[in-house]
């Protein structure tokens, strides 16, 4: 490994490493716009200038590889002047409409301006005018004036999504980003371009103008969209989720996620979230208080043998939820048979990169817990399930006389009409625990905010049930 000196610090770095990465190892940070560790080197923004001993000109760090004995300075008057002038050039035709720009607060132009320059503009000419709201595809909007032409988005499409969709046209300061004639930016990973765009040129159709980013808090979690389990950050405010962005995990999703997965936060905010237990009495569903509903459930299960109950776990819920469910049903109710249901989609999207045809985040997990795939079975009297159960299944079950359906679920969907007991449950964004992805990696999810109304996590419901049943059990054994 070559030895280099960066800002006076001598370190050994892997051969072939570029100076931006090497500087990181030395604890220095080199500003960059066009460089992205997962994309080819473009070397066009020129902000990453560093000084290399014995080289008269400043060099770009992103396209310079370490060499034995190299002496690099990432600070100092020459470097700073160089970067300042590059930044000034980048701002020459930039609209600086931060007050209405979604990127404000997480913008690399703002960031480096504060770090490097903080001077008023010397540019008095009329700026080049370009289009402000160009829809590049279903999910991405372009503000051409804000684009600093770093080509990250183009390289992403070519090199990661393997779709030639974006390109530049025109020349000089009239250069514009656009889609190829007759094409759209609509590859299944298109919103990653929004993440990697260092400025507010690309914005997400879904997220734009919804929130100022500095109001948002984050939770590091895992996407529930499919069995890949991309590591994500959930951005939320006041109990509502606003967007998902990928977190780096080289072993799972590198630094990317798919467009479909980005929308998995939506159901969490939905209007039809279940807020109260719902219990059927005299053939009609009615809201009920938590404790009363639990007591009512206990009454209705009195005298029912564990053999007559089928426990239905869910590949949509965490290992911990399924485990607690399994524990209560087995230990307290004496249930012996356990199956799980999964979200089955006709013609699911899938590819060789991230998108899995299995749209369940935890199938591997429930199977490892011993749940068997759901099959139609009429031997049981009671169906105790982690929801949502597919409509057709619950309908079939419930129409049979004397069959009971108990459901722990998140949304007030039509199917709950057929259930005898419905307990409102924390959704993914409110839950904690783990999912086991298709690689059998067990990954943590974290709650962003508490569940709505009377909802509880599955584990908490099981504790409530447990509390209700225990005294009676004690009485029996005493």
């Amino acid at each position, binding site marked *: 490994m070559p030895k280099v000196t960066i800002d006076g610090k001598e370190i050994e770095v892997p051969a072939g490493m570029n100076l931006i990465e090497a500087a990181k190892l030395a604890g220095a940070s080199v500003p960059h716009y066009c460089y992205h560790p997962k994309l080819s080197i473009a070397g066009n*923004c020129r902000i990453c200038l560093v000084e290399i001993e014995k080289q008269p*000109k400043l060099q770009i760090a992103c396209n310079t590889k370490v060499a034995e004995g190299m002496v690099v300075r990432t600070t100092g008057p020459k470097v700073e002047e160089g970067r300042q*002038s590059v930044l*000034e*050039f980048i701002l020459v035709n930039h609209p600086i409409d931060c007050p209405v720009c979604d990127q404000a607060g997480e913008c690399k132009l703002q960031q480096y301006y504060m770090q490097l320059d903080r001077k008023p503009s010397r540019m008095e000419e009329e700026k080049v005018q370009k289009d402000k709201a160009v829809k590049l595809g279903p999910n991405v909007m372009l503000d051409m004036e804000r684009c600093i032409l770093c080509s990250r988005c183009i390289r992403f499409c070519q090199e990661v999504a393997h779709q030639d969709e974006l*390109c530049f046209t025109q020349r*000089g300061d009239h250069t514009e980003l656009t889609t190829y004639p007759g094409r759209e930016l609509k590859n299944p990973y298109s919103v990653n371009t929004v993440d990697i765009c260092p400025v507010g040129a690309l914005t997400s159709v879904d997220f734009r103008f919804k929130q100022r980013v500095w109001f948002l808090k984050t939770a590091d979690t895992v996407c529930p969209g499919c069995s890949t389990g991309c590591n994500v950050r959930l951005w939320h405010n006041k109990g509502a989720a606003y967007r998902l962005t990928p977190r780096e995990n080289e072993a799972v999703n590198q630094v990317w996620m798919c467009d479909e997965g980005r929308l998995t936060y939506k159901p969490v905010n939905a209007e039809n979230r279940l807020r109260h237990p719902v219990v059927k009495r005299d053939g009609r569903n009615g809201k009920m208080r938590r404790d009363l509903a639990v007591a009512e459930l206990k009454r209705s299960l009195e005298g029912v043998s564990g053999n007559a109950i089928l426990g239905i776990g869910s590949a949509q819920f965490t290992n911990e939820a399924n485990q607690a469910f399994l524990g209560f049903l087995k230990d307290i109710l004496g249930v012996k048979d356990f199956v799980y249901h999964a979200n089955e989609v006709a013609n699911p999207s899938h590819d060789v990169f991230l998108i899995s045809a299995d749209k369940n985040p935890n199938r591997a997990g429930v199977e490892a817990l011993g749940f068997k795939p759901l099959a139609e079975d009429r031997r049981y009297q009671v169906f105790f399930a982690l929801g949502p159960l597919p409509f057709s299944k619950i309908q079939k079950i419930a129409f049979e006389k004397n069959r009971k359906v108990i459901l722990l679920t998140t949304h007030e969907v039509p199917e709950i009409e057929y259930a005898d007991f419905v307990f409102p449950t924390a959704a993914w964004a409110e839950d904690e625990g783990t999912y086991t992805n298709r690689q059998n990696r067990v990954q943590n999810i974290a709650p962003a905010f508490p569940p709505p109304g009377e909802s509880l996590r599955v584990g908490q419901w099981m504790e409530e049930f447990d509390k209700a049943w225990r005294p009676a059990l004690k009485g029996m054994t005493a």
Partner: protein
Amino acid sequence: MELILTKNFNLPESYTLQVYEKTGGYAALKKALGMKPEQVTEEVKGSGLRGRGGAGFPAGMKWSFVPKNTGKPVYLCVNADEGEPGTFKDRAILEKDPHRMIEGSLIAAYAIGAKTAYVYIRGEFDLPTRRLNAAVQEAYSKGYAGRNILGSGYDCDVFVHRGAGAYICGEETALLNSLEGNRGYPRIKPPFPAIEGLFKCPTVVNNVETLAAVPYIIEHGAAGYKKIGTEKSPGTKLFSVSGPVMHPGVYEVEMGYPMRKFLHEDVGWMRPGKVLKAVIPGGSSMPVLTAQEVEEVNLDYESIASKGSLLGSGGMIVLDEDTCMVWALENLAHFYSHESCGQCSPCREGTGWSYKILKRMVHGESKKEDIELLLDIGQKMAGKTICVLADSLSMPIASYIGKFRGEFEAHVKGNCSQCQKSR
């Protein structure tokens, strides 16, 4: 002086194979094919021939950078894009003696082990393209190109590719991208074309005039070529002279020839009533020389460099006292901002910004600070970009303001005598 590049220019139908052969054409190719490729390279290295495309890089040295036995094909690209304002000397070769360049190219291709040579020709060149295409066909028909050239067992195809009108595609790596069918963006270096060029294979890019000098070198040997010109700038060089002179045109000049003598005796000095003000010696990107400096300088790389300018492509633009230097600089800034490929922030924005300031200045809408601002922009965009297009405007900005500051100040004050005269 013995003419090398232009010796056939005045013969009738000089562009035909018949005339070329009659004057000894393709003998050098035959000789080269009897030598080892490395010997050919050595000969050209020894001749001291420097690239005539602008940068003056030693040609033989460039050839020797091509790695051997990589298992990949090697390519030769002939740069016939000639877009630099004031430069029209390659065009003369293509029109008047295309076979000389083809022969030189085949020799170069043989030396570097290329079996394919692409000639990237400026799209606007109509007659030159037709002449070149015809000449390539003739060369094929006589077995100078194609399979088993002159029975040597060496194969080399020559393809002519027309550009689409972008100055930047004359930059060698933009040329390669353009040839590959991509956007004409210069590539970041390293890697250099000799290692990773066209289609990621080892490639040599040479200018038309550079290659046209090669047959002579092979015929007369390195020593024969070195006899001409100066120690460090051997050989002859074409100069394309434009401006209000008596005889604008293309001239072949022995390196080291005094500029004053050249302009007086060969070019016939200024047209009646015109007074020399300045000369841009090597294409529009080069720093300007004052009338005084013109008196003192010789036409070779070192002498021109000693006056802070560069020989460049040999596109000599003569400016007279009626020319306003602010206007001239605005004109250049317009060109470079229009032709900047737009990838590098300093070039894309710096050229455009400079142009806007100069446009104001030309129209008398500027202030004193604008002069300093221009200088500062020029200095800040130089040396920070992928190719040297940014420097190509930066150098004129520094030299025009540096040498003719009075005119810029007059413009700021609104009393430029040249502009008032022409109004």
